[in-house]
């Protein structure tokens, strides 16, 4: 038990470091560097507000990207023709309550809470609040994100409008 707790404690610090860096890259719109944090088989999911635990193959999600689609999403967001994000929103992400929820082989399951503040000229300040469920995998010396499931706490997207940036 003690040995396991030590592994989880060490892992949590490492995961926090990883998530803070990941959040910084997104806030700085360094999207190519950010892509390098993901595994080639990663999944990127935002379930609908009314079905947070659903499967994207049978339920309409807000976002359900694989790696190839994420690469295209990044291409899109780097293009000034992505009008919803041109100029880019200013965002500031706060990650907290990081917990290791399971370890399976080389995969670590980790939960976290987030608040993302989003600012645009001529627009309201929008606050995206919710929880992340991650699968992280050890690759080389470090961690990579194999899956993020972003669960929004709102009953509906409502005043948040769209998810035109990467949450």
């Amino acid at each position, binding site marked *: 038990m003690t040995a396991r707790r030590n592994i989880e404690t060490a892992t949590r610090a490492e995961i926090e470091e990883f998530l803070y860096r990941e959040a910084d890259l997104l806030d700085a719109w360094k999207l190519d560097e950010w892509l390098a944090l993901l595994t080639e088989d990663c999944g990127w999911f*935002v*379930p*609908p*507000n*009314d*079905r947070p635990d*659903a499967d*994207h*193959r*049978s*339920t*309409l*999600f*807000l*976002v*359900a990207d694989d790696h190839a689609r994420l690469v*295209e*999403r990044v*291409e*899109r967001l780097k*293009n000034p*023709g*992505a*009008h*919803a*994000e041109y100029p880019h929103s200013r965002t500031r992400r706060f990650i907290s309550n990081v917990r290791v929820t399971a370890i399976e082989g080389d995969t670590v399951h980790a939960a976290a809470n987030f608040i993302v503040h989003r600012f645009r000229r*001529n*627009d309201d300040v929008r606050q995206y609040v919710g929880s992340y469920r991650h699968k992280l995998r050890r690759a080389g010396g470090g961690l990579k994100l194999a899956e993020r499931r972003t669960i929004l706490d709102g*009953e*509906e*997207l*409502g*005043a*948040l*409008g*769209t*998810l*035109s940036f990467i949450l």
Partner: protein
Amino acid sequence: MSGPYVTEDKKRMTFALDREALVSPAVLEREQRAIFDKCWIYVGHGSELAKPGDFRTRHVAGRPVIFCRGRGGEVRALLNSCRHRGAIVCREREGNARQFMCMYHGWTYDPDGLLKGVPGDAAYGPAFDKAKLGLVPVPRLEHYRDFYFACFDPQAPALTDYLADAKAYIDLVVDQSPSGRMEIVAGVQEYDVKANWKLLVENSVDDYHLPTVHTTWLAYMKNAGVDLKPREAGLLLPTTGTGKDLGNGHLTTDNVNFRGRPVARWISIYGETAKPDIEKIRAELVARLGPARAARVADTNRNLVIFPNLAINDGSSVTVRTFFPVAPDRMQVTAWALGPAEETPERRARRLDAFLTFYGPGGFATPDDIAALESVQQGLAAWREVRWSDVSRGMNKPEDAQLNTDEGHLRVFWRRWSELMGQSP
């Protein structure tokens, strides 16, 4: 309110909209009475209520409504307001209920709306008649092929008359299902747009904006190997399409497909392994409908607007989208995916993936539509000085020869809107 808000001169080929119509609280108030209280308004789809007692609560034309299936299986739309003091009797989003109990004083109603229980009912006089105190249904509820609409005008024509030629376009959507049963897929997208609701009517069918608003979506399609070369000289888009008047203010685009269709036109985005399955879907269509009708279903995209506020976009996937104004410069949008009820899990997954390539708050296209509409609304703050929007595109051609990139179909909406608002253009 002043007006007329819409002016048309066929000889001079001019058609203009007074921008006050998009910013005025008085106009919105009149729309609520002259349009939303008079027209058939989409409530929901029968597939959302599988069993007796199933319910969904939603707002329809500003009213709280329980869309539910009664004990005998009949679909109902009950006004969600207790007969005692008015409180909402069902506060959950969805579920299955044997009864709805008002949280205020505990009056209970069954899923048919009948008042079943009143705590301490011995305290009422002889005129108190529980049989007359059920939940009030919307004045009219009718459906066409499982799409349920409410009307708050008891004198309105039947839904099937109201829908006019739009019925044929609903049929084209429903014909995708071998059994003729389409269903709403789980998962709803509900988001606000800071723009006048009528701008989304236009945006749903205005294909003129595609090359500019959706440059990144088109780039994505091209990267994925989809053929975007214009098939004819002079087209703004890869294929030709038309804008059509379907009567009573309903309108549609009717376009030759280039963007792929889950039923049933393969594109590279679906992956090589999907090819044989798409061919199977196509073969079933041809066997059931004949080659001409199968091609009509599978090789055309149609964005259909049922006046005033329902869009059924049968494009990259099928989306059913309704939207209500909450202020002159704000609307609430609710969007669902629709698919054949008997679809295999593999086909359903492909349909949903195709949906997300374009549609929805996280799609590759809808966020840019919303950005465009919100940009318009911001610009409309100058309406007193920049008074008129030009809606004359395509008027140098006959109205029955309008392309999807013209504005003939937009003019259909505006003429009907103007008529119902008590103004003739």
